[in-house]
């Protein structure tokens, strides 16, 4: 069942969004978004994650209607919206600096989208009250935005984007201006609001923790291209290319050349001659250059059993972190190799300069595309 813009019943279903071959250039020379295809089902919390300048905001603005797509089509509930002006799209939006109207009280800010839709006075008050309660700001209706703290302003912005019961809400780095603690708290609150209302949320951030915490799916952007679109866990566990492996979480890189392939595995010779087995993810044939990607917590320190990959490493630096010890090692010519060693009482004291054996499973070592 499709809902019109004017339909103001509480939303129990989100809208679907589809980008089809969307391209965007501002100056006619550089493509800021290169052939974007993205299908967002109703009710999903999708995050666009990527470094600054990767085109996330541009994608969001095209969906909101503030930037025209240079090529391609965007669908909202299977309806093409390229020629629908922003105010007719019925999309709620939270801006990075909140964009609360400074000359209106909080309640007036919330009533604004209802007023422009000619909602009756009584219903307006009812909805404003409900929205304020949803973000736990019931008593703040008469304040001016400037009289609120950053976190409270943020909540008002969220409430305002939701008060007219949109099926789709866009958020562009909404928590960027908050300090760490408040940001984490707001992440959970926004997540819960999403779960309760069932709206579709498209969320933009450059903070990977935020993306992993909140999202159903994450689209990792780089250079105007979606590098990987998957759930947070598979983004971490199964990065599809070096960029994603680098961008999400901590990661050890070893570069080398494929010298043998068998099924899902491949044999890689590192630049110093060490040979390792790896999960074949993003390499094609023997002779390809590759970057092996390995999570620090998956490396076994002085393995008891013999492992599929075993190398010697020299300890360069030890950082004591309580529950674990962070060990920087020099492994196969890479002296930025990090290993997280669990802090178990029985372990002997480690010394810098020591050479120790380390090992890991084939599955934890991904052979990805080579980085320059």
């Amino acid at each position, binding site marked *: 069942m499709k809902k019109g*813009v004017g339909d103001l019943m509480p939303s129990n279903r989100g809208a679907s969004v589809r980008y089809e071959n969307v391209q965007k250039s501002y100056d006619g020379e550089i493509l800021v978004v290169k052939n974007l295809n993205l299908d967002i089902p109703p009710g999903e919390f999708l995050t666009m994650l990527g470094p600054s300048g990767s085109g996330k905001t541009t994608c969001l603005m095209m969906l*909101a*209607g*503030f930037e025209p797509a240079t090529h391609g089509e965007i669908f909202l509930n299977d309806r093409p919206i390229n020629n629908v*002006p*922003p*105010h*007719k*799209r*019925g*999309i*709620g*939006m939270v*801006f990075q*600096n909140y*964009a609360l*109207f*400074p*000359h209106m009280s909080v309640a007036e800010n919330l009533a*604004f*989208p209802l007023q*422009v*839709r000619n909602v009756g006075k009584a219903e307006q008050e009812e909805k404003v009250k409900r929205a304020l309660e949803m973000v736990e700001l019931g008593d703040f209706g008469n304040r001016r935005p400037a009289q609120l703290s950053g976190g409270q302003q943020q909540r008002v912005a969220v409430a*305002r*984007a939701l008060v*007219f019961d949109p099926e789709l809400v*866009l958020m562009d780095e909404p928590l960027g201006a908050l300090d760490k603690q408040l940001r984490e708290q707001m992440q959970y609150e926004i997540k819960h609001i999403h779960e309760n209302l069932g709206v579709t949320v498209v969320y933009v951030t450059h903070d990977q923790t935020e993306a992993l915490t909140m999202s159903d799916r994450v689209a990792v952007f780089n250079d105007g291209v979606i590098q990987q679109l998957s759930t947070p866990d598979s983004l971490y566990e199964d990065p599809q290319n070096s960029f994603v492996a680098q961008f999400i979480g901590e990661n050890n890189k070893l570069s080398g050349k494929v010298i043998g392939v068998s099924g899902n595995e491949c044999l890689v010779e590192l630049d110093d001659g060490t040979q390792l087995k790896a999960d074949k993810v993003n390499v094609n044939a023997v002779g390809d250059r590759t970057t092996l990607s390995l999570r620090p917590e998956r490396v076994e320190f002085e393995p008891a059993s013999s492992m599929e990959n075993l190398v010697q490493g020299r300890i360069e630096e030890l950082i004591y972190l309580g529950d674990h010890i962070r060990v920087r090692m020099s492994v196969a010519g890479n002296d930025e190799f990090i290993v997280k060693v669990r802090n178990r009482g029985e372990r002997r004291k480690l010394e810098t300069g020591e050479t120790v054996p380390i090992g890991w499973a084939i599955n934890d070592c991904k052979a990805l595309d080579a980085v320059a």
Partner: protein
Amino acid sequence: MSETATEQVLTTKDGRPLKASLARALRREKLRALVLIAPLLIFVLLTFVAPIADMLFRSVENSIVEDTLPQTVNALQDWDPSSGEVPGEPVFAALAADLQVAVDLKTHTRLGSRLNYEKTGISSLFRKTGRRVKKMTEPPYKEQFLKADKKWGQVDTWQTLKQFSPRYTDGYFLSSLDAERTSEGLQMKPEDEQIYLLLFGRTMMLSIAITVSCLLLGYPIAFLLAQLPLRTSNLLMILVLLPFWTSLLVRTSAWKVLLQQQGVINDFLVWIGLISDANRLVMINNQTGTIIAMTHILLPFMILPLYSVMKTISPTYVRAAKSLGATDWTAFWRVYFPQSVPGIGAGAVLVFILAIGYYITPELVGGTSGIFISNRIAYHISSSLNWGLAAALGTLLLAAVMILFIVYDKIVGIDNVKLG
């Protein structure tokens, strides 16, 4: 150790009390600040505060009568101006004595011109009498004065003299408001002599008209400039400021060329057939001319504060409004416009204040129907030399502006004014 230390007065190393040392250090700071602002302070006092104070004083000051005719003023105290009779011999005797002195000092002509502002003819009366008074050595003086000029036998001459004998007078202010004090008390001057209230009213109305037209023309320009990328808007801003590069006189004269009946605009309108040659528009030497020329001259003062305020309004507000369902117009009117009000406030105040005291342009293009109160003030300062009246008019203008400011503060709020 520490206990005794807290009981003692805290001192610096050399044994002076800490408080005194601190005060001394701060005093030096303050003195330094004072020295730095002293030149400006003195300049402002000399060139701004002092002239204004002097102006306020001149508008009520009137010691010339008592200084020139001390005995007469004294003798007149017993005379009742409403009696309808000319004062008696003692007053004339005092007048003769005073005038003897005044003629020697040649101050009687100055008194004459001063009183002439109040009653025409007194100037010549004093000059004429001054020539004769040397021969008046013997009483009875009254007859000799009446023989010298029969005006001395008229009651209203004496009424004027008596009315303006105090050292301070409200006469200038009454004149400024087209009022006068007659034997029947305070009343308005006859219709055909009223001029200043009309001028004040016209100055206000024209200034408001100029402010409104500046706003109507300036707002869209400032809006456009604020939307454009900085490089383009800087370039266009130079065009806005371009008029400042040419002299005010040149610009005003240019309007004369454009607007006069044989001027460019009329020629063009006749040429395209919009008006006939016989019905050329009168656009200069009247209020239309004043409004057009002054709007042009004051426009930058509206655009600049508007622009600087609009520049600070983030475009995301309008975007937010649209994303919430507002049409372009609603987003502008309910979200953008209210945030630009401080700029309107600043621009309007600036233009209005400048307009209300403007002088050159109305003088050149205003004709008789388009001149301002300032033109009248200038006339009294440089032509009629009635400085007291000029001062009173100036004071009233100042008061009017202040009152408007207070009203404005009540309605708009002065903290709603932002100059940048």
